């Protein structure tokens, strides 16, 4: 009798839960259809970089949103340079071609300085009927702070991707007993992911020789050193220089100077040592390294052509799990990058960082002609319910709860603990410095890095000339004197 009672009680509770959840879900769906009713049939246009997270938005989330609301979403996924060209021109001219644009964490300060973007917090306060009950700015990780106005705390972009540039290595090679023995015999210490720059270089050297001796298309490391593309500038200044203790591109944040004589660090001895080390890795990199931007580095690693490398985390998932695109499925390990002494302490103390925490958001230009429909769209992609699958497919996480989702936990094991590393040690990494002049200084400094890669000038010459050019450019832009 008691068993029957308990069984009935269980049934009642289960049914209540199912009904309750269905009701909540129905209410949520009702919100979208009701709030979007005035905008049904409207088409909103966006522009973003063609990356795994953006492709997921275009292929999965946009059709879902259209089905739910009747609002059409046309998302243009293009190259990084084209994306910025199109977005900036549109916002500057106020033409209103785009209703939402991708804002990388490093450009937000420039956009805010020019008042390009709509204050989303204020917009939703002014139009509460558009505020989705399933969307909350507080659900996001602290990465959302990158898209806030430092003074008001208002949000100007809904984060859609965030990832680390991490140290990937081939576990099948690093765990091979014969290789381990050979390495230890040569260098006198056990083979393991490098913790110092010297170790990293030696591991690269070892595997390059190993590949050569065994007739394998294998080199020691990837290097993102496209010799005329900004990606090489970024690899050096945002992923390599910080591991030597040179932060913020070596620009003094108080007086906006780059040269050592003016208080900057761009041409300091440490910076020159870092650039020389990085350029030296080209000897142990696949030949495509000097043509490799961010995508090609991931492709080289996925093809099994490098034993280790610094790779953008958004690629970690497909490299580790997609056998149609990757030759190293199941053989990917993740670690912190090699560091100079004291850098980890700086990062833990909050006075430095060990690498690049990249990511971006979608923001609404003031010039958008469909701000209401776009605000609904951005809230839709910012809901917790859509995050887990997006994280599994594109290795990006922007909300705290996503880390604990069962699907993400399962994926974490396949990608060598990347998500756990991001959750536990992500705070050691940092995004780009809050420069309002980001692209201008990059364009002035980058050619010297390109010339150093091409061997036209030395690392020291490159940074001396780059720092002087940066100082001059900053003055001409009105920063510093």
């Amino acid at each position: 009798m008691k068993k029957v009672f308990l069984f009935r009680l269980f049934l009642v509770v289960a049914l209540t839960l199912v009904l309750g959840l269905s009701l909540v879900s129905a209410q949520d769906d009702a919100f979208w259809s009701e709030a979007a009713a005035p905008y049904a049939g409207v088409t909103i246009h966006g522009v973003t970089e063609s990356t795994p997270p953006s492709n997921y938005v275009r292929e999965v989330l946009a059709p879902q949103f259209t089905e739910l609301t009747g609002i059409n979403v046309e998302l243009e996924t293009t190259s990084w340079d084209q994306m910025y060209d199109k977005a900036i021109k549109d916002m500057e001219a106020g033409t209103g071609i785009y209703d939402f644009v991708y804002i990388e964490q490093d450009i937000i300060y420039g956009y805010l300085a020019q008042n390009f973007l709509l204050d989303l917090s204020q917009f939703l306060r002014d139009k509460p009927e558009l505020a989705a009950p399933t969307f909350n700015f507080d659900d996001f990780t602290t990465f959302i702070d990158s898209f806030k106005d430092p003074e008001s705390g208002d949000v100007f972009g809904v984060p859609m991707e965030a990832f680390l540039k991490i140290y990937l290595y081939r576990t099948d090679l690093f765990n091979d007993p014969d290789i381990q023995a050979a390495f230890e015999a040569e260098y006198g210490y056990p083979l393991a992911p490098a913790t110092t720059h010297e170790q990293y270089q030696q591991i690269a050297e070892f595997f390059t020789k190993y590949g050569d001796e065994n007739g394998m298309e294998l080199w020691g490391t990837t290097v993102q050193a496209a010799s005329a593309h900004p990606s090489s500038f970024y690899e050096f200044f945002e992923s390599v220089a910080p591991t030597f203790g040179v932060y913020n591109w070596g620009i003094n944040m108080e007086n906006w100077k780059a040269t050592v004589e003016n208080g900057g660090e761009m041409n300091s001895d440490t910076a020159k040592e870092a650039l020389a080390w990085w350029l030296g890795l080209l000897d142990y990199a696949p030949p495509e390294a000097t043509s490799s931007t961010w995508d090609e580095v991931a492709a080289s690693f996925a093809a099994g052509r490098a034993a280790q490398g610094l790779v953008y985390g958004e690629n970690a998932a497909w490299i580790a799990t997609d056998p149609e695109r990757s030759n190293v499925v199941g053989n990917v390990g993740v670690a912190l990058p090699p560091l100079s002494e004291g850098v980890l302490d700086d990062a833990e103390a909050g006075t430095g960082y060990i690498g690049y925490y990249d990511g971006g958001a979608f923001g609404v230009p003031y010039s958008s002609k469909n701000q209401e429909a776009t605000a609904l769209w951005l809230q839709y992609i910012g809901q917790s319910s859509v995050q887990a699958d997006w994280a599994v497919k594109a290795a990006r996480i922007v909300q705290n709860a996503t880390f604990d989702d069962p699907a993400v936990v399962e994926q974490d094991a396949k990608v060598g603990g990347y998500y756990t590393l991001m959750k536990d040690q992500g705070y050691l990494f940092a995004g780009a410095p809050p420069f309002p002049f980001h692209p201008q200084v990059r364009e002035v400094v980058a050619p010297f890095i390109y010339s150093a890669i091409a061997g036209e000038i030395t690392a020291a010459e490159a940074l001396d000339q780059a720092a002087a050019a940066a100082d001059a450019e900053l003055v001409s832009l009105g920063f510093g004197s």
Partner: protein
Amino acid sequence: MRSNRTGWLLLSPTLIILFVVGFLPFIYVLWVGFHDWNVFSAREGMFWAGINNYRRLVFDNDFLYSLGLTLRFTIVVVASELVVGYLLAQLLTRDFPGKILFRIVHTIPLMIAPLVVGAIWRLLTVPGLGPLPYYFDHWFNIDYNIGRYADQAFITVVLMDLWHWTPFVTLTMLAGLSALPNEPIEAAMVDGANRWQLFRYIKLPMLRPVILTTMFIRIMDALRVVDEVYMLTNGGGPGTSNRFIGIHIFRVVFPKTDYGYGSAMSLLVLYITIVICWMLFTALMHQRSD
């Protein structure tokens, strides 16, 4: 009078379109060129700079380097294409097995968009994937890497341009050769002229208008080359070895958003192009009046 009015009426749509899409933007660029205007400057907006942008250009080593590089590239490719194009045109005036197939295959690159040409050559040359680096290494033990070696990259860019545009020169030369009157050539042959003399004193003078017109078109094209080089070299590399003036202006105007300076640069390059073309045009007109 009536026919004049009808003529202007019929011309007016074209003139209006030309005015809106040609003349107005030109005036706007001219106006912007006299200003300091950078979207991300600490000073918002446009500020009158007078001729400062043009004065800066004269001392801008990067600009002068890119301009010099572009002129060098133009001289090399136009001269090479004229020689190779003429030789191929001569070949096509004769009959040989497979001539029609050769003519079709030879003309195919002309039909391909410059960006696609860049992509094709990139696929051919990219280290680790392309067949050219592979065979250079395996057959000749040459480390062919256009991402790393400036000379190799420049030569590859020249070869790509030759591959793309020589068919155009061949076709114009072939048209010119086909239109040459036979009498002077036959008379010279009767007088005992050899092949070189036929070419130097008979064909070349008669072909001069065709050659100048072809040069005119190719120089304008070569001076504004951007897309295929950008695609092949990932933006003009390695280093700045292929940063032609078009790519340099692109980087100043778009990623660097230095609109004022970039506009001045564009106008100065336009002026140089016009001067070069005017010189050729004058030569052409002079030849015709002769």
